[in-house]
């Protein structure tokens, strides 16, 4: 039976060589073309899971499926997986290693052995897309944090992966950069790409995600549509999260019968339309 899952973790467990159990029987299905958000405290195993999705780590038990096929960890398959599942890591300060922006973005394509002309073309395109053409010849260590973040995202999308995974993409950024990044992500979705991201920002997760996973201590605690997940206060308390503010507001308004919606609004705009 064909389905719409592009990436799956089936009964995946993983532990590091020092014996720390990082993931404990994880099941996760990432729908093609959707926005999946993973929430959970530090140390919940999110980053480990991402490394498994990209083939950097191999599950101790269970399997990773890409496009409904089990990943077999041959050299060729791993290469294919890494080309198709890109990870933007959390801290661009550490992740960026080349001296020049251009050099940095070309890294993945050069590793694929692409001819230089094509590499140039693709880089120009991604620079436009991310609106960072002005910094392409700059030394990376002169960039602001926000610019570095943009470069680290360009690093990945230039390789045109099917799935783009982002580890805490909005942290430590000012509002302007956050909105720019969210716009980029929305563009990618409209191009048919799949996005998985982890965040601590419940307000953002609630308003943006199509589907949410809650993780803690290497386990999936819960999953579902954002409204269902965040409606249940017990569940989100378990992973040390709070409710999105908009839900809190909605609730007090509903108590007073000021709003007349059946569906909880996702953002202030939707809330406005709910008012009687």
């Amino acid at each position, binding site marked *: 039976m064909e389905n719409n899952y592009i990436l799956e973790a089936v009964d995946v467990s993983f532990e590091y060589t020092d014996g720390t159990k990082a993931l404990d029987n994880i099941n996760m299905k990432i729908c093609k073309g959707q926005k999946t958000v993973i929430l959970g405290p530090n140390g919940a195993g999110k980053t480990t899971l991402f490394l498994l999705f990209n083939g950097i780590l191999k599950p101790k038990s269970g399997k990773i499926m890409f496009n409904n096929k089990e990943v077999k960890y041959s050299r060729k398959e791993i290469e294919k997986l890494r080309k198709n599942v890109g990870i933007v890591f959390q801290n661009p300060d550490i992740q960026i290693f080349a*001296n*020049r922006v251009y050099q940095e973005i070309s890294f993945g394509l050069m590793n694929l052995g692409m001819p230089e002309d094509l590499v140039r073309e693709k880089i120009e395109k991604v620079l436009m897309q991310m609106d960072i053409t002005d910094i392409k010849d700059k030394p990376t260590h002169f960039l602001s944090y926000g610019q570095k973040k943009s470069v680290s995202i360009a690093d990945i999308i230039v390789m045109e992966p099917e799935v783009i995974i982002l580890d805490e993409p909005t942290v430590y950024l000012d509002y302007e950069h956050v909105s720019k990044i969210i716009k980029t992500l929305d563009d990618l979705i409209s191009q048919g790409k799949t996005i998985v991201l982890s965040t601590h920002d419940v307000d953002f997760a609630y308003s943006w995600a199509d589907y949410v996973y809650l993780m803690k201590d290497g386990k999936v605690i819960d999953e579902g549509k954002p409204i269902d997940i965040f409606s249940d206060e017990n569940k989100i308390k378990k992973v040390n999260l709070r409710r999105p503010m908009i839900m809190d507001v909605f609730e007090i308004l509903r108590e007073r019968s000021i709003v007349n919606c059946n569906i909880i609004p996702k953002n202030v705009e939707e809330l406005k339309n709910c008012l009687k």
Partner: protein
Amino acid sequence: MRKIELMIIFMLFLFTPEISYSMHIMEGFLPLKWCVIWDLAALPFIIVGAMTIGKKLKENPKLKMLLGFAGAFAFVLSALKIPSVTGSCSHPTGVGLGAILFGPFTMSILGLIILLFQALLLAHGGITTLGANTFSMAIVGPIASYAIFKGIKKVGGPNWLAVFLSAFLGDLLTYVTTSFQLAIAFPAERGGFAVSFLKFMGIFAITQVPLAISEGLLTVLVINLLMEY
């Protein structure tokens, strides 16, 4: 039958894991007498190194943190794996790179600290052989590397060649010193020191020359990238 045995021994040389660490003389291998002799031989260089650092520290107090980072950097460097020409993996020594970046006398102290941590944290080298290893890896290697680098620059040689030869020959001279240390402690039953020295040199020629080439190439790459800054 015998030939097969010899083959097996030869194969062992080529495929033993972690081979690049094999130039660290392991804990307990040298007789006590030679441990003490090499401790004493290394001591004056360490004192000169400490005095050099002490003087620089007075001028620039930030240097202490920088030296800490330099030591940690060199340690981490030696824990990385380089894909070797022969297909197996090896670890860079950082002798050439360190000498070019920090100078030979600073490297004697840094080298001593790195060797201490390698012995304590990674079980490469040892405490009783610390003096001998310091002498070959933190004194002879860096001084040779530095002299070669400066020498080639002085006669107007290209930078890449100076860097390559500095790292490559620095590595090789380290192995030569180690061979010397082993040979003088264990002279051959027939032919004494000279034969033993040749035997150890032969072994290192097989195992370490490809690694020295790899490291030379890598050092050129790193120095080129650093010059862009």
